[in-house]
C-alpha cells in the first residue's frame, strides 16, 4: 500500500513537472509508461488476438475426428495470409500489396458508418428537431411563457424593429450600424420564441453555415452568421461547463498526494 502510494506520487509529480518545463523526470515517466503500454498492446492484441482468432480455432478444428478443411482454409488461412500482407510495407516494390487488407478494413468501416450515421445522426436528429416544432405550430403557442410583465412587448417590438430597419436598410441608407441593430433585434426575437422553435431555427441556420457551393453574401451570409452565433454560444457553454470537472480531477490528485501519500507515510512511520 505504502509502496504503491509512493510510486503513484512519484509518477504524478514527474508528469506535473512538465508544466514548468520539459525535464528528465518527465521524459523518464513518459518512456516508462510508453514501454509498459507497448508491452500491454503486445500481449493484449497480438498474443491473445492471434491465439483466440487464429491458433486455437485451428487446433480445435484439427482436434476433431474429421476436420473441415474447406472451412478452415476459408475462415482462417486466407484471412491470415491477407492480413499478413500489411508487412509488405517493408518489401521495396511490393508496397502496394498492403492496400488489400487496408481496403477491406476501410470498406468495412465506411459501409458500417454510412448507414448507421444516416439513421442515428440524420433521421433521428431531424425527427427530434421536427417533432416538438410541429406540435408548437399545431398548438400555436409561439412565445415562451412566464415572460415577465414588463417585457411582454419584447418579441413583437424586436420583430417590428427588424422589419422596419430592414426596409430602411434596403431602400434608404446602407449603414453598417443599422445592420448590427437589425442583427441584435433578430437575435432577441429568436430568443423570445419557444424553446423548440429556437432549436429548429438553430439547427437550420447552423446547417446553412456549411453551404459550400454558394458565395457567402446577401441572405446566405446573414443566415449563416446567425448559425455561427449559435455555434459560438455552444462552444462557450461547453468550455465553461468543463472547467469544474477538469479542476475536480486535479483537486482529487492533490487530495491523494496530501492525504494518502504524505499523511500515510507519516502514519506509517509512527507519526500521528
Amino acid at each position: 500500500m505504502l509502496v504503491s502510494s509512493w510510486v503513484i506520487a512519484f509518477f504524478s509529480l514527474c508528469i506535473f513537472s512538465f508544466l514548468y518545463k520539459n525535464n528528465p523526470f518527465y521524459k523518464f515517466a513518459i518512456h516508462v509508461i510508453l514501454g509498459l503500454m507497448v508491452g500491454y498492446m503486445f500481449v493484449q492484441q497480438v498474443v491473445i488476438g492471434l491465439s483466440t482468432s487464429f491458433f486455437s480455432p485451428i487446433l480445435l478444428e484439427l482436434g476433431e475426428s474429421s476436420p473441415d478443411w474447406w472451412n478452415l482454409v476459408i475462415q482462417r488461412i486466407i484471412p491470415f495470409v491477407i492480413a499478413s500482407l500489411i508487412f509488405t510495407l517493408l518489401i521495396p516494390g511490393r508496397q502496394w500489396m498492403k492496400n488489400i487488407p487496408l481496403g477491406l478494413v476501410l470498406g468495412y468501416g465506411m459501409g458500417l458508418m454510412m448507414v448507421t450515421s444516416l439513421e442515428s445522426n440524420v433521421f433521428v436528429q431531424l425527427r427530434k428537431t421536427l417533432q416538438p416544432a410541429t406540435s408548437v405550430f399545431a398548438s400555436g403557442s409561439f412565445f415562451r411563457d412566464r415572460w415577465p410583465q414588463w417585457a411582454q412587448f419584447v418579441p413583437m417590438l424586436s420583430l417590428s424593429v427588424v422589419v422596419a430597419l430592414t426596409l430602411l436598410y434596403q431602400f434608404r441608407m446602407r449603414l453598417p450600424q443599422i445592420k448590427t441593430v437589425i442583427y441584435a433585434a433578430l437575435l432577441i426575437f429568436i430568443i423570445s420564441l419557444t424553446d423548440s422553435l429556437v432549436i429548429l431555427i438553430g439547427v437550420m441556420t447552423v446547417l446553412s453555415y456549411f453551404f459550400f457551393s454558394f458565395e457567402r453574401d446577401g441572405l446566405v451570409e446573414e443566415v449563416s452568421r446567425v448559425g455561427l452565433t449559435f455555434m459560438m454560444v455552444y462552444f462557450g457553454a461547453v468550455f465553461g461547463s468543463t472547467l469544474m470537472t477538469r479542476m475536480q480531477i486535479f483537486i482529487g490528485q492533490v487530495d491523494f498526494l496530501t492525504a494518502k501519500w504524505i499523511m500515510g507515510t507519516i502514519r506509517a512511520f509512527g507519526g500521528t
Partner: protein
Amino acid sequence: MQVALPVILCSLTCLLLVVTHFIPHEFSKVVLAEVKDNWYKLIKVAGFGFAIFSVLRTHIRRLQAQGTDWQYSVVALVCFLVFPMTYLIDNILENRALFVTTTYSSSLDTGMLSNKDKVKIENTDGKTYSGQIVKLDSKKRQISVKLSLTGSQIKSSGLKSGTQSFRLLKNDVVVLEKEPMKVENKNLFFQGAGRSISIKGDGKSTEWVYNTIVSPLDTTMFALVAFYICSAAYRSFRVRNFEAGVLLFTGLVVILVNAPLTNLVWNGIFTAKKTASQQFFVQDALINLKDWLLAVPGGSAGRGILIGGALGLITQSLRVMFGIERSWLG
C-alpha cells in the same frame, strides 16, 4: 492492378456492409460474423503487430545511434518486457482449472453426451460442481470434464486432486452413477488456453502494475487539462469581433454560475418572489439561464453540427465507395 484491386475490394466490402444492413435474414448475420470475426479481427491484429514492430525498431535504432535521449529508449525497451512477464506469471500461478477424468463402461450409450456439453458432477455428500466436457474418447471409453472454477474458487471449493467417486449429471439426469473419477489440477496455460491479460480483479501482478502506474498516469494527464484550460481561457477569451464576444460572454456566464458561491449569494439576495415583475430574479435564475444556454441554443448548435457532419461523412463514404477518394492508398 495496383490501384484497381484494392479500390474494388474496398467498394465491394462497403457495398456488402450496406446491403446486409437492410437484410434482417439470418444470412446477413452469417456474412457479417464471417467478415467481422475472421477478416477484420485478423487484419487489426496484423496492424498491431506491425505497429509494435516499428516502435521497437525505432527505439533500437535510437539506441544504436546513441543520439540525444537514447537512455530513455533503454527505459522504454526494458519496460516493454514488464507486461509480458506479469502475463506469464499470472497465467502460471493462477490460470489453473480442475479436470475430472473417468472411464465409462460399454453399457453407456454416448449418443446423449457430446463434446462441449454442459454437465454437473456430484460428490458423495451431494455437493455439485458445474463443468464442461472437454474430451470424449469413444475408443478408450474415457470422458474428461473441466470444472468451471477459477483460481481462487478452487481453494474455496475444497476439491483435492486424486481419485474419489462422483456421479455425472447432464441437465439433472444422472448419466454416470457413482464412479471413481480422477481429479487433476492442471495449468490451463500449458493446455493451450491462455487467459486474456486481465485488469478485472484476477491476475494479481498485472493488476498491481496497471493500477499503480497506468491508471494514475491517466488521471494525472487528465488533471493537466485543469491548468491548460485556465491558460487557454486567459489567452484567447478576447473580444475581437461579435462572434468572439458571444463566445466570451457565454463562457463567462457559465463559469460564473458554476462557481458554487455565486448561486448561494444570488439566492441569499433574491429569495423566491411570486410577483411577475421579479420573475427574472427568482431563485436559481442563474442556474436556469446556464441550463437554458447549454440545452437550447447550445443543444441546437450541437445537433446542427452533428447532422452536417453526418451528411459530410456519408458523402465521403460515397466517395470512398465509388473509388474517388484514394488518399488511403498512399
